[in-house]
């Protein structure tokens, strides 16, 4: 290298101390600097060679580190088993795992946090790991999602492992010990195929739905025992309802969807199914079992009609929701306090009662059934879900994972885990109620030990466990299906749509039923489409990437060929020096590599993807314009677009607030630096921290904002505001405007205002730019305006705003682009899109499609639509700006 002597020559020259005082004017530095100050640094500048060496060392370290961190073994040679969601096994799970490691010294178990609120509904973390080829080896997650995941080939079929077991093995897993329906829920075969079904998970816990009745409340209305039929339930609910003087609900008898019942339980009870159980022919097409969505069948219509009727009895779903928004948890649980006398809820509700009021006089019974079926002698029906242990299909250590699974599911392990939980609960002075599990032996043993033969357990709990054990033989499950999650989401959408129905006074029964059927039919379209996609043979044309790579290679090469030719020709005309072009390529190389591999390549790749169906795990297949076509027919797409459009409101609002602050700060006030710092500070709070902070600030019960509102709720000013608003706008007489705490993050109507509020808090970021803009306005303009007799408002309108217009344009464009891409805060604050998907913004929905459903093609199409929207909005703003932006600055 020749670098060394050159370096010396430079420093040598500088050290010789050249008294050069000539000055140069530097473009926009707007001040003259003595050239001597622009001289190379004498000290503090690391020599180039050292810099290059450090660079090389860094690259070596990073390579070694990458290699090290992608190996599956630990440093001591043990194989790792990565186990997710282990904490759901209870407090002592680590001790169990440690014992497993001692008994099986070849394994090291890594228990990690999944950082997922709900692995089944939000499987993004797990699916990314599966697609990333480094999944966890063993996962505990919701059983009902097994169909969905097995359908994507993300799970390992456990049948061969079960069959290979040695019956004498103390950890032998025997299928016979498990509830049949639980095993069914973990069994999957592709719908419409003739493959033998496989078992993809071993069931663990159970959650089962039952009717909870507050006996004290029932007694007060002389209801002798909890209802057993729908008609009785309706009648009792009406009896138990109490209204406030102003017509709002004070106490409710029963709300069909309070607790955890959903439409599923009522549909099952009415004999309905969401997917066809038998082969059916519709419009000449034959559907094998579980390939036709039958959500609009008469039984489901009847069930949903029942739900709407009960809500109508209570005054409509809006009233009930308003009532429920005041509910609190723990010791203020609405069921414990008698605010709601009956509910259908999961068995975990027992623990809530045991923790906060173990002396409550309550009763657990099977959920009521339709009257005609009870008359026919049909036994009560409920539905259950629960957990299961699965091994991802691409797991590195399946043998170890299965061994750990056997260990975790053995009765001895359960015994220890139960005992640990009991100890932990009792040491906190609480009752311990073991949760039901799918293994009958374990359930029986635990029930006897901790409930039946335990004197500390009050009677209602003992009776509840008898009912639970009985009902476990009458349990329905949600059918394992590759569209299970979508079906679940859509069934909720349909339910919400139907409950919020139009005014039905004076309408016939038939009309109401038709309306409900129409809603159910509308919501099942997307599910059926997905199901058809899965059942039909995949699109025939697999994407051959080779040709694209070749074409891209040519595309990339062409500018370089052109460059060489230009340099050749340039040399002839002495335009370019070949040497400098080569040097330029050296300097450009990082960007060129990045451009080719990480920007342009991916962009073109994304274009191709948007015309395919691709889930990362399988091959991409062309579908033409289908993705774009489906976008236009999908309700959630438009919903997310609408939500995002709503959020555009925050752009002018934040601009106004930050401009206001900047104008105040521009008043030549003292301590401007301190003010500026304080107003700017909210913008530097990390987004995760800010989101979590606002999640608490806007919390219904203890959030600062609601606490403040509640403290002035009963004061005269609140009355004045009420009177003012009611005089300006006429509300329905039974629902006047009330000054009260909004359900910021739980009420669909308040979700987006909450987000705007959060954005306003961080409005100080824009202030800096405004301040710079304001200070660049020449004072002569104001002086001239004063001479012309303009007051300060006119000055603002005719001097300040026009002079700021380029800044307004810039802020508006950046604000719109930023708003179209809102993701982090929405993802953190609104799990699964928030109430009624009102927090599902465009980028969030795109993320869900891409990494939760792994519809990569569809998500790519969404990304390009986003690009077009952003481009269009920007162009519109630029075009409109010609009319109002003043570039005539100086």
């Amino acid at each position, binding site marked *: 290298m020749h670098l060394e002597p050159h370096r010396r020559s430079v420093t040598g020259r500088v050290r010789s101390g050249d008294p050069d005082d000539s000055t140069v004017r530097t473009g926009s530095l707007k001040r003259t600097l003595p050239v001597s100050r622009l001289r190379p640094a004498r000290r503090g500048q690391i020599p180039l060679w050292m810099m290059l060496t450090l660079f090389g060392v860094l690259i070596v370290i990073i390579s070694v580190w990458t290699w090290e*961190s992608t190996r599956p073994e630990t440093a001591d040679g043990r194989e790792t088993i990565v186990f997710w969601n282990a*904490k759901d096994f209870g407090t002592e799970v680590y001790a169990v795992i440690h014992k497993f490691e001692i008994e099986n010294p070849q394994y090291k178990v890594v228990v990690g946090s999944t950082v997922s609120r709900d692995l089944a509904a939000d499987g993004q973390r797990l699916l*990314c790991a599966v697609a990333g080829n480094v999944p966890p080896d063993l996962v505990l997650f919701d059983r009902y999602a097994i169909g969905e995941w097995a359908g994507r080939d993300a799970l390992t079929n456990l049948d061969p492992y079960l069959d290979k077991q040695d019956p004498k093995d103390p950890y032998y897993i025997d299928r016979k010990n498990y509830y049949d329906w639980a095993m069914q829920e973990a069994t999957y075969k592709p719908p419409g195929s003739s493959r033998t079904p496989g078992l993809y998970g071993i069931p663990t816990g159970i959650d089962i739905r039952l009717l909870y009745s507050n006996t004290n409340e029932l007694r007060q209305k002389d209801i002798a025992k909890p209802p057993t039929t729908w008609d009785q339930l309706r009648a009792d609910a009406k009896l138990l309802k109490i209204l406030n003087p102003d017509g709002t609900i004070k106490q409710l008898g029963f709300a069909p969807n309070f607790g955890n019942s959903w439409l599923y339980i009522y549909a099952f009870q009415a004999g309905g199914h969401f997917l066809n159980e038998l082969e059916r022919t519709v419009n000449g097409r034959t559907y094998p079992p579980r390939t036709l969505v039958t959500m609009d069948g008469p039984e489901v219509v009847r069930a949903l009609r029942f739900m709407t009727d009960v809500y109508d009895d209570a005054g409509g779903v809006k009233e009930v929701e308003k009532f429920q928004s005041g509910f609190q948890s723990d010791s203020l649980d609405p069921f414990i306090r008698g605010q709601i006398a009956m509910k259908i809820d999961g068995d975990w509700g027992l623990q809530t009662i045991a923790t906060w009021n173990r002396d409550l006089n309550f009763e657990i019974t099977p959920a009521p059934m339709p009257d005609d079926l009870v008359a026919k002698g049909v036994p009560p029906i409920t539905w259950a879900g629960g957990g299961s242990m699965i091994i991802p299909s691409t797991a590195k250590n399946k043998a170890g994972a299965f061994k750990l699974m056997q260990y975790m599911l053995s009765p001895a392990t359960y015994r220890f885990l139960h005992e640990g939980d009991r100890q932990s609960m009792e040491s906190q*002075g609480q009752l311990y109620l073991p949760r039901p599990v799918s293994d009958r032996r374990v359930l029986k043993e635990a029930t006897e030990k901790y409930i039946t033969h335990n004197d500390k357990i009050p009677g209602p709990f003992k009776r509840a466990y008898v009912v639970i054990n009985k009902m476990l033989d009458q349990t329905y499950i949600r059918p394992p299906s590759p569209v299970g999650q979508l079906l679940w989401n859509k069934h909720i959408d349909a339910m919400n749509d139907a409950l919020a129905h139009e005014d039905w006074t004076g309408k016939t029964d038939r009309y109401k039923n038709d309306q409900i059927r129409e809603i159910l039919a509308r919501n099942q379209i997307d599910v059926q489409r997905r199901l058809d996609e899965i059942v039909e043979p995949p699109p025939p044309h697999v994407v051959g990437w080779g040709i694209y790579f070749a074409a891209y290679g040519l595309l990339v090469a062409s500018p370089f060929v052109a460059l060489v030719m230009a340099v050749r020709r340039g040399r002839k005309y002495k335009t370019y020096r070949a040497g400098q072009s080569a040097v330029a390529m050296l300097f450009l190389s990082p960007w060129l590599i990045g451009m080719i591999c990480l920007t342009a390549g991916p962009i073109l790749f*994304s274009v191709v993807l948007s015309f395919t169906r691709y889930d990362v795990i399988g091959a991409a297949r062309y579908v033409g314009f289908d993705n774009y076509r489906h976008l236009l027919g999908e309700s959630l797409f438009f919903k997310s677009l609408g939500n995002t459009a709503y959020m555009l409101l925050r752009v002018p609002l934040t601009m106004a607030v930050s401009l206001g602050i900047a104008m105040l700060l521009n008043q030549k006030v003292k301590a401007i630096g301190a003010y500026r710092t304080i107003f700017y500070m909210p913008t530097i709070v990390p987004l*995760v921290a800010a989101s979590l902070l606002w999640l*608490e600030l806007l919390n219904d019960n203890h959030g600062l904002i609601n606490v403040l509102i509640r403290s002035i709720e009963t004061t005269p000013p609140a009355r004045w505001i009420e009177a003012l608003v009611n005089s300006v706008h006429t509300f329905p007489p039974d629902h006047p405007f009330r000054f009260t705490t909004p359900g910021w993050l739980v009420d669909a109507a308040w979700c987006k205002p909450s987000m705007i509020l959060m954005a306003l808090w961080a409005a100080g970021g824009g202030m800096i730019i405004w301040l710079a803009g304001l200070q660049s306005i020449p004072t002569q303009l104001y002086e001239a305006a004063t001479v012309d007799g303009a007051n300060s408002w006119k000055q603002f309108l005719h001097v300040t705003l026009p002079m700021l217009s380029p800044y307004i344009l810039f802020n508006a464009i950046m604000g719109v682009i930023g708003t179209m891409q809102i993701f982090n805060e929405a993802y953190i604050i609104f799990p699964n899109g928030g109430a009624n998907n009102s927090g599902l913004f465009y980028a969030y929905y795109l993320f869900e499609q891409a990494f939760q459903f792994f519809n990569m093609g569809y998500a790519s199409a969404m990304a390009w639509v986003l690009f077009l929207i952003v481009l269009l909005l920007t162009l519109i703003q630029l075009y409109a700006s010609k009319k109002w932006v003043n570039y005539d600055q100086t």
Partner: protein
Amino acid sequence: MTRPDAIAPRGVAEGAGRWQRTGRYFARKGWVHLILLAGVGLFMFPFVWMVGMSLKTDDEVVSSDIFPAIPTFHAASPSVRAAPPVPPPPEGVTSKRWSDLYKQLVGAGETALAKRPLPPGGDLVNAAALRASAAAKLVDDVAIPMSGKIWPQGDAAVLDTYSKKLSDDVTDAALENRLSRFELGGVEIHSLGNEIKTICPGNQIYKVWTVESGPGQLLPAGKDASHLKYRFKSGWDDPIVLRYEFESPIDADQLHKLIIAYKGDDSWHQVDATLDIGDTHWKTGLTTYIAQYRAATLTLQPYGFDDTTYQPKTWVPLEPFTEGSWQNGDPHKAVLRLIIRPSGTLGAIYGKVERNYLRAFRTIPFWTYVGNSVLLVALQMFGALFSASFVAYAFARLQWPGRSLAFGLLLATMMVPSQVTLIPGFVIWRSLGWYNTLNPLWIASWFGSAFFIFLMVQFMKTIPKELEEAARIDGLNAVQTWWYIIVPLVKPTLAAIAIMVFMGAWNDFMGPLIMLRDQSRFPLSLGLFGMSVDQAADTTLVMAGNMLMTVPVIIIFFLFQRYFIEGVTVSGMKG
């Protein structure tokens, strides 16, 4: 514009002039300051509240206090807990009638309570205050749940029904409930072989434990527990040492954990412990503060496998100690000592401030997360500074065919939303086998971000050409010129870029969410989110974690404020 101060009469005393000027200033600009201060209040309050939340106890969160209470020296226990707040009127009772009826109900309760003896330890407290508090509690527990049919029947009927319900059991329970005590609820031992052994039930403690020293006395508490009655003179009083000698069911090396159930008295006194089993001696490595009135456990655990996991470390570590130890021959002879040291007001405040933060540090592998975040920040900053200044040199200073075209391309890529390259990015990194490594999160920064290159080009263009020409004459090649001449001159822009990269890298959330599997590789953003998911109910803990993530950024902001502002202004002007 006229300048009033310019025509002010001179010759006034210096001090008076200053005051006058200040007065005039506030007369003119005071309204600005008023509005600004209101704004400051509005914008700062969420911060202040976050700090407050991070110091609260669970009770304070539930009770919706805006700020946490300041603890003071708590001299004696038991003490009387404040009466619960007046509940809202039952159905059919007007609030006017309720305010009167409530007093009568409390009175009836006090009458019933007066007949009952005070619970053990009650001699330390003001009996009247205890009965008043218990009477209020009785209204909550007994009167409010009464049937709705009774309330409209008139006060006499209500009081009659109520009095009949006040059995001895109910009244005694209310008295015990309002007595704030430090209760001990039993000791259990877990062995490494996963056996759980109860070695001392709570209702035996006052019989078999001894008070080795200090102003305390052990008494029974309810059916299942014992409590410690004490009276400290000051925060510097001698500690109470409780001693429990027992036969350990296991060997010392088989000890997994020893669990002591207790109920706090909200005194913020400090608990330490020593444990000797056979010839092994331990003492606690962390001090526990007796916070809240809640049931809790003190889990003593020697270093073991649990410490190698990422689970929330809710136990108190036991450290081996040999100082002054003795040989006692019997390997199962065990001594447990609880040392209860009084906290003065300052000590109590310290304990309260420390509590949630210490828990946050022990709930997540905090330093691992910080390490990952810092590594990501460093790598990204290094890469972005290098690539932006290196590439910009070619655009700003070198002549080559297609330069303006390439520059246009660079600007065009800024228009493409990041969502477009998100999916191909995932596919590329995964096919390189880099899922679950940090590489995908920083590599891209080494190849130049269009925005930073653009900023750098704009700035570099303003540097006079003469310098380079001089350097070339000196014999420097292009790379040397870049390194020795250009880089030192673009430092302001480099600083602005560094700040932006820091904020971007520290904040990055979606990248880690998609690309990382193992907790050992999480940066703080994802780790903190993970904590908020796993410990969702523990608001104060999450807020303490939030503070720990925010404070470094605020410190850096104050240190480099100039560059923050410059970065925003520069990107605002040039963009």
